[in-house]
């Protein structure tokens, strides 16, 4: 019979080999795929290392179970959250100190004894920069900012969580406005690992709703200021950049600007600020209408005033016109009268001219009279009777 081990013996050897080669804890970088805190206070994790793959994106290259014992967990969790502003969660890249153990029944397991939050922060930042670079290279970076914002934003599609404090703040601010703003809530998870996809789904739901909106507001749900990772998610940011309506964000953080904020047409700090901005568009438009009404009234007034003035001028011109026309005609008549006067016979007689008459009328020629004939000569103050004694026709 060949030399053989029982299964237990073999496992013991593997366990001993591990203990021999890895006697003290080592630092390991990995990604958390799954994280469960059980009722006894131990935290169980599934760690993975991925390999980039041109076909399917990434595939697991190595995987291992890990645990943070109840004795260490509260301290590590606090340390991590204080440094990163986020709780340990799936999809995070972590650098952890582990001791490797091997149990004949349960196989290999990693006991996490410490964690380096700086690594996670660096990884998140690196990932964020990669996302920014990718969106830029795909030409969608400025897309949402290029969407025309209508003069008045009155119909708003809101992406938030109905129970969130931020959403309540937003709705309260909207309600306090004297303008009626229509909002429709498209619910989404605003934190946690599925929130990125949830935002994408909400954006799609808005597009497929068939309703008309002027803008999309993304209002962050939760009260915790920590978990903002979903707003750096590539898919979420891509959907926001590609949104056909201007996106207004009120994610409510002051530490860091997320990628979603960077691509959104109108990035604002808080849900209240988003509501105030929306109400302000209505107020501005109202002001413009008010001003237009005043201008309209004023120009109407000016128009009728100048028309009235013109009528008054015409009335006056009519009066002076007819007066001058009449006096012009009067003057003309007077000059005609004077001309007529100049040729009047009495005036000629006074000047020394005389009119000679025979029985046949006014004498104009020597032929009109005969020698010895009696004629009458009219002068200015009477007439003279004369006799023709001679005729001289030398003037002919």
């Amino acid at each position, binding site marked *: 019979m060949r030399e053989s081990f029982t299964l237990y013996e073999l496992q013991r050897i593997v366990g001993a080999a591990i203990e021999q080669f890895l006697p003290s804890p080592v630092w390991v970088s990995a990604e958390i795929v799954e994280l469960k805190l059980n009722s006894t206070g131990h935290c169980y994790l599934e760690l993975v290392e991925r390999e980039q793959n041109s076909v399917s994106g990434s595939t697991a290259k190595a995987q291992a179970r890990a645990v943070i014992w109840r004795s260490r967990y509260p301290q590590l969790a606090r340390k991590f959250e204080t440094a990163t502003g986020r709780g340990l969660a799936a999809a995070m890249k972590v650098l952890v100190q582990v001791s490797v153990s091997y149990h004949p029944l349960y196989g290999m397991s990693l006991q996490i004894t410490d964690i380096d939050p700086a690594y996670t922060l660096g990884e998140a930042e690196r990932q964020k920069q990669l996302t920014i670079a990718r969106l830029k290279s795909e030409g969608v970076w400025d897309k949402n900012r290029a969407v025309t914002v209508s003069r008045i934003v009155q119909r708003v599609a809101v992406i938030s969580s109905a129970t969130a404090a931020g959403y309540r703040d937003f709705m309260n601010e909207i309600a306090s406005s004297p303008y009626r703003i229509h909002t429709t809530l498209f619910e989404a998870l605003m934190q946690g690992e599925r929130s990125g996809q949830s935002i994408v789904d909400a954006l799609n739901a808005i597009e497929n709703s068939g309703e008309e909106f002027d803008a999309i507001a993304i209002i962050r749900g939760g009260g915790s200021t920590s978990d903002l990772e979903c707003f750096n998610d590539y898919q979420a940011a891509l959907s926001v950049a590609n949104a056909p309506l201007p996106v207004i964000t009120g994610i409510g953080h002051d530490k860091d600007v997320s990628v979603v904020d960077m691509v959104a047409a109108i990035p604002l700090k808080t849900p209240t600020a988003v509501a105030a901005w929306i109400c302000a568009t209505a107020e501005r438009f109202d002001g413009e209408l008010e001003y237009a009404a005043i201008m309209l009234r004023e120009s109407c007034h000016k128009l009728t005033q100048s028309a009235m003035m013109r009528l008054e001028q*015409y009335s006056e011109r009519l009066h002076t016109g007819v007066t*001058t*026309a009449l006096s*012009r*005609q009067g003057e003309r008549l007077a000059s005609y009268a004077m001309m007529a006067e100049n040729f009047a016979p009495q005036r000629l007689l006074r000047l020394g001219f005389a009119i000679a008459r025979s029985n046949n009328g006014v004498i104009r020629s020597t032929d009109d009279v005969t020698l010895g004939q009696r004629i009458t000569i009219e002068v200015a103050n009477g007439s003279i009777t004369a006799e023709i004694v001679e005729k001289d026709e030398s003037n002919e």
Partner: protein
Amino acid sequence: MSNISYTEAMAEIEKILNSLQSADCDVELLAQKVKRASELISLCRTKLRKAEQEVEKLFE
């Protein structure tokens, strides 16, 4: 007379005013022209006041 538009009335008033300035203005037609122009002017005034009131009402 009341069928005439404001613009037509204004044009006719202007025509009469111009004819008053020409030297060979017909005296016999003078009174007739002045009467016509006066009537047109008061017609325009009425139209204008009415328009003013209508506009004011719109702003109330």
